[in-house]
C-alpha cells in the first residue's frame, strides 16, 4: 500500500512538471481500492480512459465512485462524477452507508457530481447535432475543481436517449480524445452485452487502454462477485478472476496474495498451552508464524486444543482472534470453563476476540475478506479457525483450498500463527484432510479415537511438524476438569492400552507389587523365625553339651577321687599291716 501511495505521490509531482521526464513504465493512477492496485500493478493508466463493464448490479457504479472518492480523500486528486443514471442526491444517499460523504466533498471542491438527464420522449431530433454540450459541461466541471479523475457512468445511456447512432459513435470517439487531451484518468462504465461482447454498445472499441470486467455469479445460492482485468495495454497485470467484495468499507479485491514464496520466517517458538504437547515438539511448542492443523473425528477435543492454545497466547499478553464457525462464543466460554480454561478474562482484557458466524452467512470469499479485515484491525499474534470443515458447505473443495492458501499466505506474511481445526469424517488415518490443506500447513496434529474394550479414548499423533524434532509416538489425550494433558500410552504385554484398560493394567501392576512386597516381608519373617528357632536350638544343645560335659567331668573326678581314696585306703591298710605309722605319715605328706 505504501508503495502504491508513493507511486501516487510521484505521479502527482509528475503532473506538476508536465511530465517532462519520460518513464519506461506506464504511469499509473492508484485507485485506492483494496487489492485492485495490486492486481493492476499500481492502478489505472494515468491520463487515459478505462472501461469497467459488467452486468447490472455487479458494482460498476460503486467501483467507479470509490475511485473518485478515494482519489479525493487519499490522493488529493479531485474528481468529476458524471452520472447518466442516478441523480446526484440519490448517489449521495446510496453511498452514505459506505462512509462516503459526497456532499461534503462537493463543498470542499474535491468532487463534482453532475447528473445528466436524457429522456427520449422530451427530445425531438431535428437534424445534425453534436455532443458539444456534454463536452462543455465536462470540461467546465473538470476545470472548476482541477479534476484529475473523471467517471462517466453509464455512458451508454446516451444511446437510449439519442437515436442517431452515427453521430453518437463519432462523438464518443471525440469524447475519448477529449478526455485524453484533458489529461484526466477516466473510468467509463458499460453494461455487459449479449454474447461475447463486453458492452452493449461496443464501447470497448473506443477504450483500448484498460478494460476491467466485473461479474456477479450465484453458485449454490451464494453470490460471489469477481473481477478480471481483460486488457491493460502497456503493462503487466494479474490475469485471473479475482473475487471482490462490497461491504461497509467499499470494495475489496482479493488477489491471491503472494504468488511468490518469499516469506520471512521466525525460529521463535510459542507454546501450545499444553505442556505435555510441547514436550512432544522438543519441549518448545510451535514456530511463531506457522500454521497448525488439528484434525480429528467428532468429539476428540479439537476445540479444546484450540481454546487451550488461545488461552496460552493471551496468557503471554499477546492478542488472539478466534473465528468460530460452529459454536457461539458464549457456548465456547462455558464449555471451556469445564476444563479449567477461563477465557472470559482475556476477553475482558481485550486480548481475545471471538467472531462467530455460520459459514452459510456469506460466500467463501466474503469470509476471507471478513477475516482479512478483522485481522488487519486487531493485529493478533495468533488466529484460530474452528472448524474449517464447515466452510465446505459454502464452497467447493478447490475453492476452500484456494481460500485457505491465500489466508495462510497472508497470515505468514504478517507472522501470525494460525491454528485450524478440521473434522475428519473417516476414522481411518487418511493422508489428506477433506480440505486438502494438510500439505500447506507446517504442523499437523491428529486426534483420533482409539476404540477398545467397549470404550473410546483419544489418541494424539503428530503427523508432521516441519523444521523441528517431534515425537513419533501416540499419546493418549485426556481431558479432565483440570485441563488437557497427554499421557504416555501403556505398552504392556498385551499391546497398546488406553483409558480404563491402561488404568486397570496399572492397578494390576500395583497389586502385584503389593503382593510381592508382602511375600517378601513374610519370607523375611520366616527366616528370622527360623534363625531364632535354630539359635535357641543351638543354645539348648550347648546347654546339653555343657551338662553332659559336667556329667562326664563329674564321673571323671569321682573316679579319680575314688581311686585316690582307694589308693589311700590301700596304703593305710598296707601301713596298718606293716604297723608303720611313720611311713604312713610321710607317704601322706608326699602325696600332697
Amino acid at each position, binding site marked *: 500500500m505504501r508503495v502504491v501511495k508513493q507511486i501516487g505521490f510521484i505521479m502527482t509531482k509528475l503532473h506538476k512538471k508536465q511530465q517532462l521526464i519520460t518513464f519506461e513504465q506506464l504511469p499509473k493512477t492508484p485507485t485506492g481500492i483494496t487489492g485492485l492496485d495490486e492486481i493492476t500493478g499500481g492502478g489505472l493508466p494515468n491520463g487515459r480512459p478505462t472501461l469497467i463493464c459488467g452486468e447490472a448490479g455487479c458494482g460498476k457504479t460503486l467501483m467507479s465512485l470509490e475511485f473518485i472518492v478515494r482519489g479525493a480523500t487519499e490522493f488529493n486528486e479531485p474528481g468529476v462524477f458524471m452520472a447518466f443514471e442516478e441523480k446526484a442526491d440519490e448517489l449521495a444517499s446510496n453511498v452514505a452507508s459506505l462512509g462516503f460523504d459526497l456532499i461534503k466533498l462537493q463543498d470542499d471542491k474535491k468532487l463534482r457530481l*453532475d447528473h*445528466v*438527464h*436524457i429522456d427520449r420522449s*422530451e*427530445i*425531438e*431530433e*431535428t*437534424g*445534425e*447535432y*453534436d*455532443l*458539444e*454540450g*456534454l463536452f*462543455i*459541461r465536462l*470540461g*467546465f*466541471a473538470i476545470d472548476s475543481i482541477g479534476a484529475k479523475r473523471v467517471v462517466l457512468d453509464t455512458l451508454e445511456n*446516451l444511446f437510449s*436517449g*439519442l437515436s442517431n447512432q452515427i453521430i453518437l459513435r463519432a462523438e464518443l470517439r471525440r469524447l475519448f480524445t477529449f478526455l485524453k487531451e484533458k489529461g484526466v484518468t477516466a473510468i467509463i462504465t458499460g453494461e455487459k452485452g449479449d454474447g461475447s461482447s463486453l458492452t452493449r454498445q461496443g464501447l470497448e472499441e473506443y477504450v483500448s487502454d484498460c478494460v476491467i470486467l466485473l461479474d456477479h455469479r450465484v453458485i449454490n445460492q451464494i453470490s460471489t462477485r469477481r473481477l478480471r482485468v481483460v486488457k491493460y495495454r502497456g503493462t503487466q497485470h494479474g490475469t485471473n478472476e479475482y473475487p471482490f467484495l462490497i461491504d461497509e468499507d467499499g470494495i475489496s479485491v482479493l488477489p491471491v496474495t503472494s504468488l511468490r514464496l518469499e516469506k520471512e520466517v521466525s525460529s521463535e517458538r510459542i507454546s501450545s498451552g499444553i505442556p505435555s504437547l510441547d514436550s512432544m515438539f522438543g519441549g518448545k511448542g510451535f514456530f511463531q508464524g506457522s500454521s497448525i492443523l488439528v484434525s480429528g473425528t467428532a468429539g476428540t477435543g479439537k476445540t479444546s486444543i484450540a481454546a487451550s492454545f488461545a488461552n496460552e497466547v493471551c496468557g503471554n499478553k499477546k492478542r488472539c482472534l478466534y473465528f468460530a464457525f460452529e459454536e457461539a462464543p458464549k457456548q465456547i466460554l462455558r464449555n471451556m470453563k469445564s476444563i479449567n480454561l477461563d477465557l472470559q478474562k482475556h476477553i475482558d482484557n481485550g486480548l481475545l476476540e471471538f467472531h462467530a458466524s455460520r459459514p452459510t452467512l456469506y460466500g467463501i470469499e466474503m469470509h476471507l475478506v471478513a477475516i482479512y479485515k478483522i485481522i488487519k484491525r486487531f493485529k493478533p499474534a495468533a488466529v484460530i479457525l474452528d472448524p474449517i470443515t464447515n466452510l465446505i458447505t459454502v464452497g467447493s473443495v478447490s475453492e476452500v483450498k484456494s481460500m485457505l492458501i491465500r489466508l495462510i499466505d497472508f497470515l505468514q506474511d504478517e507472522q501470525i500463527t494460525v491454528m485450524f481445526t478440521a473434522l475428519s469424517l473417516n476414522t481411518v488415518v487418511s493422508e489428506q484432510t477433506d480440505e486438502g490443506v494438510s500439505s500447506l500447513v507446517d504442523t499437523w496434529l491428529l486426534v483420533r479415537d482409539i476404540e477398545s474394550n467397549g470404550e473410546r479414548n483419544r489418541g494424539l499423533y503428530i503427523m508432521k511438524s516441519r523444521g523441528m524434532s517431534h515425537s513419533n509416538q501416540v499419546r493418549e489425550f485426556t481431558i479432565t476438569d483440570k485441563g488437557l494433558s497427554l499421557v504416555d500410552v501403556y505398552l504392556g504385554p498385551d499391546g497398546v492400552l488406553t483409558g480404563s484398560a491402561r488404568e486397570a493394567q496399572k492397578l494390576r501392576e500395583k497389586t502385584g507389587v503389593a503382593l510381592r512386597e508382602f511375600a517378601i516381608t513374610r519370607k523375611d519373617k520366616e527366616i528370622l523365625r527360623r534363625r531364632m528357632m535354630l539359635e535357641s536350638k543351638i543354645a539348648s544343645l550347648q546347654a546339653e553339651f555343657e551338662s553332659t560335659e559336667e556329667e562326664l567331668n563329674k564321673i571323671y573326678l569321682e573316679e579319680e577321687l575314688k581311686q585316690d581314696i582307694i589308693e589311700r585306703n590301700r596304703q593305710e591298710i598296707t601301713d596298718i599291716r606293716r604297723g608303720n605309722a611313720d611311713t604312713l605319715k610321710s607317704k601322706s605328706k608326699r602325696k600332697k
Partner: protein
Amino acid sequence: MTEQNQLPLDQGENQFFRLRLFVIGASPNSVRAIANLKIICERYLKPNYELEIIDVYQQPLIAREEQIIALPLLIKKSPGVERKLIGDMSNTDKVLKGLGIFTES
C-alpha cells in the same frame, strides 16, 4: 393573430412562444440552426415569439442547469410543457411538431 392561418388550429390567439436556442460559437451546426430557426419563426410564429440565442461557450454553467448534452438545442419554455429540440433545425416538420404547431399541409 387571425391572419396567421398557419397557427395551430386548436389554440387561442394569445399564444406566445418563448424560445431559447443554445448554440456553440460559430460552428456549422449552430449557424445552420440559427438560420433555419429564424426562417421558421418568421414564417409561423411572427410576431408572437421571443427567441433568445445563447452561446454555451460563453456561459458554461448554463449547460448543467439546462441539462444540455447535444447541441444545438432549442428549448420551448412556453406555451405548454417544456420541449427540447436538438439538431440544426433542418427538418422543419419535426421542428413544428416539437413546438406543437400543426400545419395544414
